[in-house]
């Protein structure tokens, strides 16, 4: 370290410590301990303080959500994505796949394979490279580009299968990516850098520093997109500099897939699962819920294909966000590629390459993700699924919860858990009765922090003082008090005069507020900021509209009932 650097660090440390020290208020250890120990009691008191009206509102809202879940489950029913061809990949888990020169190209440990999509024949490419360990493959400029963890980018002639060029890449390449787009080939490095390779000279032309390491990389004609640690980064071309990033609130290092969109990019988001359309100016335009965590995306015409952790492949119409259909292959759908209008996928579990097609009778399902701006609330479907789930499970969960709420608790106030083989009920009790309940389920049978919940009911179904489901912590969490990447909040307020119905519009989805005793309450979760809250009178006429400029999620919104339109 240089003296100058040490000098700067020393001064920075002194100044920062002084400022931070100033923020520490005098405190009494015993008082803090007492407050901490009493916090449970305080929460109990808050729960006692909840009015019956609030409890009823929450219960009704839950019923509404249940209805939406059932509806969506029914609408999503039917297998519309079919497997039309399989290719046994044999031993060796595939890592990455691309399409080019009339073939599919797949890399796996120590191997590059060419797959004939017509015959399914697999041809290993003998590169004669010792310790060859490819991690990613892409096609462009008439070549197959293979990223070798050994420290090089190989340019392969697809006709002969021979290496045209070997471009040394400095830096760790484990789990890194290569992408082709615009006038360059791009390589991500683990230490939050992206390298631009000039295909004209087969040399590294530039290194771009970004704010986090890539778990995915996509190059489009105008930009390079980096799926970073909890953020999506856009590198603008031709300047090759990071333009900015948008925080997606996904778990760090959780690969979720990237695919080009007409207005920017589609990116997968986890927990519980969504694909998000981000525009070129880094605005989240649309979010569409998926059945589980997305791992790979591909676009084919207007359709977005989504490969997911539970083995689901979903097809989404990018024009309106509607789910066209879905099918299932082996767990952990790692990559998708499109060639000659056909979509190919492989999963980590199955070791098989699948050719997928939509069934001819696939029909669009009503959307839960139409465009948010200039939205007519009357046209927005009500509700959305908290958890893409089968109606039978949700109904059972609801029944189980409702059975428990109001019963005597097994123990004094505590969050408690009842665990079944593949799901768990978490309930919340004060010293008199159980006041809240939520059901959680994980696809693999283990209940972990952040697992999606199936149903919640009661005055409070969270252990967190914010009353947020998204903050739930279940046994086994070491330090997770905030495990959800989603916004989950409540808006409450006074009902505008004459209002018979209140809708909240968030990301093209609508939630109907429960109106009770002169107040309304509505909850939502999602990644898109709510844009409108609209009130209607008994005749269906709009009488009030609150825009996003004042509708601040996570905070209670209050409206003067005497001032229609003046909230």
């Amino acid at each position, binding site marked *: 370290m240089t003296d100058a650097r040490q000098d700067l660090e020393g001064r920075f440390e002194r100044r920062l410590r002084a400022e931070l020290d100033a923020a520490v208020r005098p405190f009494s250890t015993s008082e803090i301990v007492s407050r*901490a120990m009493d916090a449970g009691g305080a929460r109990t008191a808050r729960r006692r303080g909840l009015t019956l009206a609030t409890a009823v509102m929450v219960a009704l809202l839950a019923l509404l959500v249940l209805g939406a879940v059932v509806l969506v489950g029914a609408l999503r029913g039917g297998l519309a994505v079919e497997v039309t061809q399989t290719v046994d990949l044999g031993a060796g888990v595939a890592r990455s796949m691309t399409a080019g020169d009339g073939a599919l190209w797949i890399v796996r440990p120590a191997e590059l394979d060419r797959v004939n999509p017509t015959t399914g024949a697999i041809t290993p490419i003998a590169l004669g490279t010792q310790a060859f360990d490819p991690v990613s493959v892409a096609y462009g400029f008439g070549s197959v580009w293979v990223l070798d963890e050994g420290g090089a980018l190989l340019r392969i002639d697809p006709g002969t299968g021979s290496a045209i060029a070997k471009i040394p890449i400095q830096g760790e390449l484990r789990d890194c990516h290569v992408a082709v787009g615009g006038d360059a080939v791009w390589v991500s490095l683990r230490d939050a850098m992206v390298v631009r390779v000039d295909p004209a000279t087969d040399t590294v032309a530039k290194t771009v520093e970004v704010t986090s390491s890539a778990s995915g990389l996509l190059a489009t004609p105008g930009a390079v997109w980096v799926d970073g640690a909890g953020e999506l980064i856009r590198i603008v071309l031709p300047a090759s500099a990071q333009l900015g990033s948008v925080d997606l609130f996904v778990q760090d290092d959780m690969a979720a897939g990237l695919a080009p969109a007409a207005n920017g990019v589609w990116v997968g988001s986890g927990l519980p699962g969504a694909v998000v359309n981000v525009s070129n100016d880094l605005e989240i335009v649309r979010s569409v819920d998926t059945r589980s965590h997305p791992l790979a995306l591909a676009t084919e015409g207007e359709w977005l294909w989504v490969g997911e952790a539970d083995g689901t492949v979903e097809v989404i119409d990018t024009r309106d966000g509607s789910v066209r259909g879905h099918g299932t292959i082996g767990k952990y759908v790692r990559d998708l590629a499109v060639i000659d209008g056909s979509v190919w996928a492989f999963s980590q579990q199955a070791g098989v390459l699948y050719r997928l097609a939509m069934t001819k009778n696939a029909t669009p399902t009503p959307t839960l993700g139409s465009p948010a701006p200039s939205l007519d609330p009357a046209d927005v479907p009500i509700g959305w699924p908290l958890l893409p789930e089968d109606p039978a499970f949700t109904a059972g969960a609801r029944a189980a919860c409702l059975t428990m709420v109001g019963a005597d608790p097994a123990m004094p106030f505590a969050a408690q858990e*009842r665990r079944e083989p593949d799901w768990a009920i978490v309930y919340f009790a004060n010293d008199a009765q159980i006041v809240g309940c939520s059901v959680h389920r994980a696809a693999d049978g283990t209940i972990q922090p952040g697992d999606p919940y199936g149903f919640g009911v009661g005055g409070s179904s969270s252990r967190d003082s914010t009353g947020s489901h998204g903050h739930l912590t279940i046994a086994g969490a070491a330090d997770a008090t905030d495990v959800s990447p989603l916004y989950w909040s409540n808006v409450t307020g006074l009902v505008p005069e004459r209002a018979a119905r209140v809708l909240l519009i968030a990301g093209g989805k609508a939630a109907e507020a429960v109106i009770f005793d002169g107040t309304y309450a509505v909850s939502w979760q999602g990644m898109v900021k709510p844009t409108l809250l609209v009130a209607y009178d008994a005749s269906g006429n709009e009488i009030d509209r609150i825009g996003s400029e004042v509708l601040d999620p996570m905070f209670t919104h209050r409206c003067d009932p005497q001032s229609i339109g003046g909230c």
Partner: protein
Amino acid sequence: MSGIWREASRPAGGVESRGIGRAEFAELVESHHADLVRLAYAMTGDVELANDIAQTTWASAWQHRAELRDRSRARSWLLTIAANRARSALRRQRLVHWLPLGSPRISGELSVEDVHSPDLVAALQRLAPRDRRILGLRYGLGETSAEIGRQVGLSDSGVRVRISRLLPALREELGDD
């Protein structure tokens, strides 16, 4: 329905002990409360909020104390809870966080001018929450890069690289050229 009833916060192995007692908990408060406030303040830039976050961190820690099986990790555990709570607070304030960066900055030789800003914490707020956390842990609390890496999910070298990029960037934000 059949099933096993147990406390949600109890480890899966069914350990009966609730872990830390009041006296030991008080020792933790004595040792770490100020640092929880410091970290929360570095991340939020709000004194009141930082003190509130520290208090709620203790409430959460007490409630979840059975999950702290390795006492030697208590500090890391507490700082992580505080950081998560700070991040939650930031989310409530702003749903989508924008991070304008301008041109990329390459780490290298630094000049020896002092940092003259009257308010470094305010300048920190222009960085991403995770970067505030890293700088707060490193320079506000004196954590090692290895320990920071464990808390934020980066390698030791990754933290050092990150800091080497952040420092000059912050200097530039402060107009200290």
